[in-house]
C-alpha cells in the first residue's frame, strides 16, 4: 500500500456494515516507526499517579514513546514533567525509578537540577572560561510540551498541538470518574511493581483489554478454577470474585468516544463481590445514584493510545508501551481508595493478583494468545481482519442509556453479553488511521 494513503489500512464503512483493519498494521516495522512519530509523540500519554508524588521532591521516571520522562514535585508542591535528559551531553539524568530528591545530579559531568527542573549547578563553572554566549543559554531541563492532571492521573505530551487534557479525554471522563471517585479521599496506586513484556504488537493489548469475546475460550482454565471455588467451595477463597458463569447472561454494551477512546460495560452479576459495594451508601451520597450504580458495573476502557482501566475482577490501570513492532512492555497498577479498610484492601489485592498478574491465572493466557497472533502475522498474505461483531446493533451517537448517563458518545451499543461486540474497537482504529493519515499528509493532528 502507498503510504500516502495510509488511512486505507483501516477499512471503515459502518454504513455498509464493514469495519476491518489490515494485518500489516500489527506487523509492519515501517508503520511502527510512523506510529511513534504520528501517534505516541503527538498525543497525550499517561505518566504516573499523583499519589506516587505526594511529598515535595518526590519523583517518578517514565517514558512517552521513546522519550525518557521525569515527573517531579517541586519544593513548593507544584508538579512538573520534563525530558529526563541532562542539557549538557544528553545522558539520562534520574536513573532511579522513583524516590525523593531535592537535586538530581548527572552522573556524567555533574550538572545539577532542582526538583523544579531548574539548573542549579554547572560543575566547576567559574574556572571553565565559558564565553558569554553560554551564560545566555537556558540550561534547565526541557519541560514536556504539555503536562496536566485529571482526577489524580498525570498525563503529558511531547507535542503542543494537542487539545487540553480534559477536551482530549472528553466524554470518556465519565468512565474515568467511575474509577477515580470510588473513595471519599481519592484513589491511590498500591506499592509493588509488576512489569513484563510480550512478543507481539502493542495493539493486541489495546484490543484484548476491551474484548469480551475471548473470555470463554482463552480463559476456560481460569473459569474452571472459579467454578471449583463457587461449587465445591475449594481453592483460594481469599481471591473469590464474581461467578463467571453468571456474567454470560448479563446485559452490556459499549460506547465509542472521540479521540480514539472507548468503553465496554456489563451488568455485574454479584455486586457484593466488589469492594466498592461495602461503602455504597457513602458513594451514593457523594456521586449520586447514577454514577454509584455505574461503579458497580464491569467496565473496561481504552484511553487512546496505550492506557486502559479495567474495573472487573479488580480495579486495574495498565499501560502498554511499544518497544518494537513485535515487542511490548506492560506495566500494571492496582488502584484502591485512600484509607480503605485493611480486609477490603487485602481482598482487592488477592483478586488483582489472581487475574491480572503475569504470574496469575488469566493474564498469561492472554499474552500467549497475543504471541501466537503475532506469529500468524508472519504469513505472507494480505487481508483485512474484521471488527464486525455487533455492527448490526450499532447506534450512531448517544443511545437512550447514554442520554440517561449524560454522556455523548460517537456510537453506542446495548444488548446481551453474548453479542461480545468488537465495535468498541472502531474508535481506536479510526483514530489510528486519522492520526497516521494526518502525519503523512503533513496536516495538524487536531483542530485546535
Amino acid at each position, binding site marked *: 500500500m502507498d503510504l500516502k494513503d495510509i488511512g486505507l489500512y483501516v477499512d471503515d464503512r459502518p454504513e455498509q456494515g464493514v469495519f476491518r483493519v489490515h494485518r500489516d498494521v500489527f506487523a509492519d516495522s515501517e508503520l511502527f516507526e510512523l506510529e511513534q512519530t504520528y501517534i505516541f509523540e503527538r498525543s497525550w500519554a499517561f505518566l504516573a499517579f499523583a499519589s506516587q508524588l505526594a511529598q515535595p521532591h518526590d519523583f517518578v521516571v517514565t517514558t512517552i514513546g521513546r522519550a525518557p520522562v521525569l515527573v517531579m514535585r517541586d519544593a513548593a508542591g507544584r508538579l512538573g514533567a520534563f525530558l529526563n535528559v541532562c542539557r549538557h551531553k544528553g545522558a539520562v539524568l534520574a536513573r532511579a525509578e522513583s524516590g525523593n530528591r531535592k537535586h538530581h545530579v548527572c552522573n556524567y559531568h555533574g550538572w545539577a537540577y532542582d526538583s523544579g527542573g531548574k539548573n542549579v549547578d554547572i560543575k566547576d563553572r567559574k574556572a571553565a572560561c565559558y564565553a558569554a554566549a553560554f551564560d545566555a543559554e537556558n540550561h534547565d531541563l526541557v519541560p514536556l510540551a504539555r503536562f496536566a492532571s485529571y482526577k489524580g492521573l498525570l498525563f503529558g505530551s511531547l507535542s503542543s498541538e494537542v487539545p487540553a487534557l480534559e477536551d482530549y479525554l472528553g466524554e470518556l471522563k465519565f468512565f474515568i470518574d467511575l474509577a477515580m471517585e470510588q473513595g471519599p479521599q481519592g484513589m491511590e496506586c498500591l506499592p*509493588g511493581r509488576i512489569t513484563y513484556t510480550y512478543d507481539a504488537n502493542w495493539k493486541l493489548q489495546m484490543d484484548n483489554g476491551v474484548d469480551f469475546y475471548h473470555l470463554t475460550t482463552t480463559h476456560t*482454565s481460569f473459569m474452571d*478454577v472459579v467454578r471449583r471455588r463457587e461449587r465445591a467451595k475449594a481453592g483460594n477463597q481469599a481471591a473469590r470474585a464474581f461467578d463467571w458463569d453468571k456474567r454470560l447472561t448479563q446485559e452490556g454494551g459499549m460506547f465509542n468516544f472521540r479521540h480514539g477512546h472507548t468503553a465496554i460495560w456489563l451488568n455485574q452479576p454479584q455486586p457484593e463481590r466488589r469492594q466498592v459495594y461495602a461503602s455504597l451508601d457513602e458513594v451514593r451520597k457523594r456521586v449520586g445514584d447514577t454514577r454509584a450504580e455505574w461503579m458497580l458495573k464491569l467496565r473496561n476502557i481504552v484511553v487512546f493510545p496505550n492506557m486502559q482501566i479495567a474495573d472487573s475482577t479488580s480495579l486495574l490501570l495498565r499501560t502498554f508501551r511499544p518497544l518494537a513492532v513485535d515487542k511490548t512492555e506492560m506495566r500494571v497498577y*492496582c488502584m484502591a481508595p485512600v484509607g480503605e479498610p485493611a480486609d477490603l484492601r487485602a481482598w482487592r489485592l*488477592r483478586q488483582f493478583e489472581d487475574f491480572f498478574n*503475569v*504470574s496469575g491465572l488469566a493474564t*498469561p493466557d492472554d*499474552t500467549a494468545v497475543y*504471541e501466537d497472533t503475532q506469529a500468524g502475522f508472519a504469513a505472507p498474505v494480505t487481508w483485512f481482519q474484521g471488527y464486525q461483531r455487533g455492527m448490526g446493533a450499532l447506534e450512531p451517537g448517544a443511545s437512550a442509556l447514554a442520554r440517561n448517563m449524560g454522556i455523548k458518545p460517537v456510537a453506542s451499543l446495548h444488548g446481551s453479553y453474548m453479542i461480545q461486540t468488537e465495535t468498541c474497537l472502531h474508535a481506536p482504529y479510526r483514530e489510528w488511521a486519522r492520526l497516521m493519515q494526518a502525519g503523512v499528509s503533513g496536516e495538524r493532528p487536531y483542530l485546535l
Partner: protein
Amino acid sequence: MTDLLEVGREILYREAAYLDEQRWDEWLALFTEDCEYWVPTWRTEGELTSNPRAEISHVYYAGRAGLEDRIVRIRSGRSPASMPLRRTTHIVANVLLTGTEGDALMRLRSSWTSHVFDPHHKKTDVFFGHAYYELRGEGGTWSIAKKKTILQNDYLPSMVDIYCI
C-alpha cells in the same frame, strides 16, 4: 543440627524435583494445609514489598488451597500459556539452617535458579533468587509451613507460573 539440615535439604530438593517432573500431588503434599506461600514484588530497585495485605505480591496464598488452584489450571489442558507445559530444571543450593525450635520447626534459607524452556516458542527463560522456609515437624514428618520466594529478575517475560520459580 547437622541432621536437621539434612532433613530440610531433602525436602527442598524434593520440592524442586517434583516440579521438574510434574509430580503435582507429591509437590502439594509437601506443604501444610495452612501454609503461607509468598512471592513479594519489588517496591523499588532495592526494596521488596513487606506487607502482602497492603502491597502487591507476585503470588500470595495463605493456604495450600491457592497452590491447588494452580494445579487445577495446569492440569485443565485449557490454558494456552500451559500448553505445552514448559520444561524446567530447578537447582537449589546454598541451603542454610537459620533457626530451629526443638523438633517442631526449622528455618532454612536457600538459593535457587530455574531454567525454563518453552517448547512452543523454542525459547529459554531463567529465573533466580533465594527463598526463606519454615518447616514444621509433626510425628517425625516435616512439611513446608512457610515459603517466601525472592525473585531477583522481576522484569518478567509473558508468563511466570508457580512451577517456573
